[in-house]
């Protein structure tokens, strides 16, 4: 754990702790509190310029930088992976500007910033999961105008979205939305849960962990507090379902109960599967290795 004094000693730094200035953090913090108080509602905020392009996780990054302190332990994942370009660069940036400890262990982290996955291991009460959100407006698919979608949320007028889902069933025999599956939060707002797979949607419901969502380009923050009802949209006669991996297992750790990525070998034409959550996969592999020895 980092000693705060060590951080304070870094007098030569030419930027504030966590890069963004205290006034900006204060605004983001106020917006986070309002987002928590109105679950699922998108709170507008003044998204700041950062040394990273908008659309590459700046919303999540600004939330993380406003939350983080010297005692925090940070994990950053991209599609479940600790080592992909987006995750590594964000991690390096946060580490450089705060000096916090970095981990790959889901259960050790106090803050996890994520792009498009919720970790397989169940997170606890003392953790916060920060989502990077590319498109926060769940109604954008059916309505291009921001003014109109805001009115629709105000009036709880979600009929266009319901019709869209119905038409999907009529056209394709199923709802084809793979990621960004719409959910209703606390019985009031329909929300975009960021492009997490359907597999992760049930983890939002009555979770122990605080979920914060940041969209830097679109300048929105929203939240799901712990123990909040989160229901994927479904019809009485057409229920929500998650991806099926029946008969498939991770080729590295052998897990059959995780979200799997398909790896296609173009030379052999062979398909193999590995866990999307690399940290979990490594843990299971290590456990198996120990038990074999």
């Amino acid at each position, binding site marked *: 754990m980092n000693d705060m004094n060590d951080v304070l000693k870094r007098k030569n730094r030419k930027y504030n702790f966590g890069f963004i200035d205290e006034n900006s953090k*204060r605004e983001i913090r106020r917006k986070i*509190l309002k987002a928590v*108080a109105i679950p699922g509602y998108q709170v*507008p905020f003044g998204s700041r310029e950062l040394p990273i392009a908008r659309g590459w996780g700046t919303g999540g990054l600004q939330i993380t930088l406003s939350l983080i302190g010297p005692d925090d332990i940070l994990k950053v994942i991209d599609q479940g992976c600790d080592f992909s370009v987006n995750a590594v660069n964000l991690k390096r940036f946060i580490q450089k500007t705060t000096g916090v400890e970095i981990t790959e262990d889901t259960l050790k982290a106090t803050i996890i910033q994520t792009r498009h996955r919720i970790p397989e291991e169940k997170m606890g009460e003392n953790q916060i999961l920060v989502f990077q959100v590319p498109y926060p407006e769940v109604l954008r698919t059916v309505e291009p105008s921001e003014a109109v979608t805001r009115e629709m949320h105000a009036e709880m007028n979600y009929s266009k979205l319901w019709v869209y889902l119905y038409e999907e069933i009529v056209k394709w025999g199923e709802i084809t939305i793979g990621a960004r599956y719409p959910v209703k939060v606390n019985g009031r707002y329909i929300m975009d849960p960021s492009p997490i797979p359907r597999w992760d949607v049930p983890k939002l419901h009555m979770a122990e962990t605080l979920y914060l969502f940041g969209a830097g380009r679109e300048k929105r923050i929203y939240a799901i*507090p712990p123990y909040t009802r989160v229901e994927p949209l479904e019809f009485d006669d057409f229920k929500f379902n998650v991806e099926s991996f029946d008969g498939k297992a991770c080729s590295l750790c052998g897990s059959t109960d995780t979200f799997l990525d398909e790896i296609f070998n173009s030379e052999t034409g062979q398909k193999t599967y590995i866990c999307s959550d690399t940290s979990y996969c490594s843990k299971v592999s290590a456990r198996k290795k120990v038990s074999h020895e």
Partner: protein
Amino acid sequence: MLKDFESCFNCQRIFRMVLDSMSRPGKINNINDFSGIKDGYQYDSMLKILITLLDNEVTFSMSAQMGEQFKKDVAEFTGSIISEIQSADFYIARGNELNHEILRLKKGTLQFPDDSCTVIMAVDSIIRAVAEHSLSASRLRLQGPGIKDYSFAAVEGLNLQNIDLIKQRNAEYPLGIDVILIDDYGNVLCLPRTVKIEVEVD
């Protein structure tokens, strides 16, 4: 006056505690560990929260009972602007006084429910209460997002009619106000607009 209060790190840790309490209504966090503003300062804990949340981009209003000097201190140390009560982003009051002004606080619009007031209220003490033991005349039974089943908190120095006024102001969800209670010992309890409050009196 603020020489011992390290703004960057103390504000971060105080915010995390307020966020934790706002995310889990009924959960009490204590901010007394952080270096104080000034020895013997009456509203030391409250001022720490105000410095954490207020700046020149937001406005505040204060009940007369808090005193003119405290109003000046808040304006000076946060840079926040004093405003009319109906347009204030933050409203600062004591919990023991009956405060009809709560009904005039801005509660947002259906398009922008976040454009609403946050009340920061000083009370005498906040104690975690349990269902079977009533510790105080004003035990709050809370239910809603952030709470698994129910949570309980006993608050002393809170006029129960203020709770009725808060409930009235929050009757049309998502419109409403969010409340942060802070006691003399640095205990923080939050009542976001989503929480259902029942007062249990022995």
